[in-house]
């Protein structure tokens, strides 16, 4: 699904990722752990080119998306991202947050279709016009239906018309997760999704993530929640100083870490 080859990233002189090569397969739940500043966020943000890799390649959907010439927006629609601070659109209601990207994509497609048909009719392009059946109103009502369904799934349908500022942290994060789900992504990247939450809200978010995992979603999760890693991960990756220095199954990883640095880290977090 995602193939990372010799990924490097520097901020000025500071080389944060020092050559990462790994493959994330369909259905895998990869949990990335490691000390603060080891480059976990940077790695995740390079996967969808939120940070442009300095060198190396990221093969996704048959293309090297690290290449700046690739239309990254199309790939990001299939690669959801969930942030520590939710990043819901503050000026949009909950349901608008969820509908925004699907409506935008469908509208854009509609526009392209109409343009291509026009060119064909004007004999500026070969081919037969494709009948355009969708209307903007239909696109919107479809997106609304789907968004409502997703909101029901997390039990927040009565918040559809509320603004994010009126939600609790846990509710915000769950809305952020279904916002990325609304695009039917192939993979979702999570960057410490529960770190900014009050302790009593961590559970509801992890619950939803476990749900997704059970349904077969491919996930890459940076987290300090070792319980989640043990329970959900199919693979645990330990990062330190910009390298992936250990990769194994959760059982193996937590009971029998191979490197000293990993043992040291685990002894600090598993008290």
């Amino acid at each position, binding site marked *: 699904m995602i193939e990372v080859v010799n990924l490097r990233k520097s901020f000025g002189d500071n080389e944060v990722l020092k050559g990462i090569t790994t493959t994330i397969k369909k259905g895998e739940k990869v949990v990335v752990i490691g000390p603060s500043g080891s480059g976990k966020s940077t790695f995740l943000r390079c996967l969808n080119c939120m940070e442009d890799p300095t060198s190396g390649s990221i093969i996704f959907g048959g293309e090297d998306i690290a290449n700046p010439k690739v239309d990254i927006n199309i790939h990001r629609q299939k690669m959801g991202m969930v942030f520590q601070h939710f*990043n819901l*659109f*503050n*000026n949009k209601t909950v349901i608008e947050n969820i509908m925004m990207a699907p409506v935008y994509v469908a509208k854009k497609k509609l526009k392209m279709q109409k343009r291509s048909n026009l060119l064909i009719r004007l004999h500026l392009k070969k081919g037969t016009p494709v009948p355009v059946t969708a209307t903007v109103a239909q696109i919107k009502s479809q997106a609304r239906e789907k968004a409502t369904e997703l909101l029901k799934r997390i039990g927040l349908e009565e918040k559809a018309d509320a*603004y994010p500022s009126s939600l609790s942290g846990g509710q915000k994060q769950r809305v952020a997760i279904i916002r990325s789900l609304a695009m039917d992504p192939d993979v979702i990247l999570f960057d410490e999704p529960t770190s900014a939450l009050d302790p009593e809200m961590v559970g509801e978010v992890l619950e939803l993530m476990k749900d997704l995992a059970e349904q077969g979603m491919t996930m890459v999760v940076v987290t300090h929640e070792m319980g989640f890693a043990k329970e959900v991960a199919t693979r645990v990756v330990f990062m330190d100083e910009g390298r992936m220095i250990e990769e194994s199954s959760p059982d193996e990883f937590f009971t029998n870490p191979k490197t000293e640095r990993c043992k040291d880290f685990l002894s600090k977090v598993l008290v």
Partner: protein
Amino acid sequence: MNGFMFKVEKFFDILLNKGGYKEVLEGLQNTMIIAVAGLLIGIVIGTLIATVRVMPKYKAAVRVLDKFCSFYVGLFRGTPMVVQLLVFYYVMLPLLELKMSSVLVAITVFGLNSGAYISEIMRGGILSVDPGQMEGGRSVGLSYGTTMLKIVIPQAVKNILPTMGNEFIALVKETSVVSFVGAKDLYLAFQSIGSGTYEFMVPYLAMAIIYIIIVCIITLLIKIMERRLRKSDRGR
């Protein structure tokens, strides 16, 4: 005191019975048209410039555009409005062999000028929006432009609304110099009423009062708009 009342009577006589009100209405209309149209043009130009100036500067084209924008802003903020009006009217138009009405000239110059100021206000507004908003938009596959237009700028505008209100008030006040290129504004209207009798005390007092009233109305409108926006923030 009697003398003053006499002057007031004479002023109202000219204003109401000798057609003075027509000039005042025309002046008021021009003043408002120039200020409002100037503001609208300024908002468009200012938003475009601000967007360029906050864009990531990877591409050479963006850097060139950015240089041009900062030159533009410096030029219009660094010279007085009167000078800009005079140069546009007496230098640019003849050189380009163009003809434009005085009001149109005033609108253009006010638009260009307020564009420079508004770009700085807007830039501050955009920078005050949490960068996470842009990341959120980009992460679901929206383009930079769409995220800017639909997510970041609306929030920026909310942050800068009070400052924008001040900019509009400044524009209204500055319209009092458009008579330099012959546009009939409030000042020319009252000046012409006064020059009929060589009596300027009451006309200019009336002019001052009208300006104060306009500014009060705008201030009130901005307050109402702000309250409305704040309501949408709380999300009921």
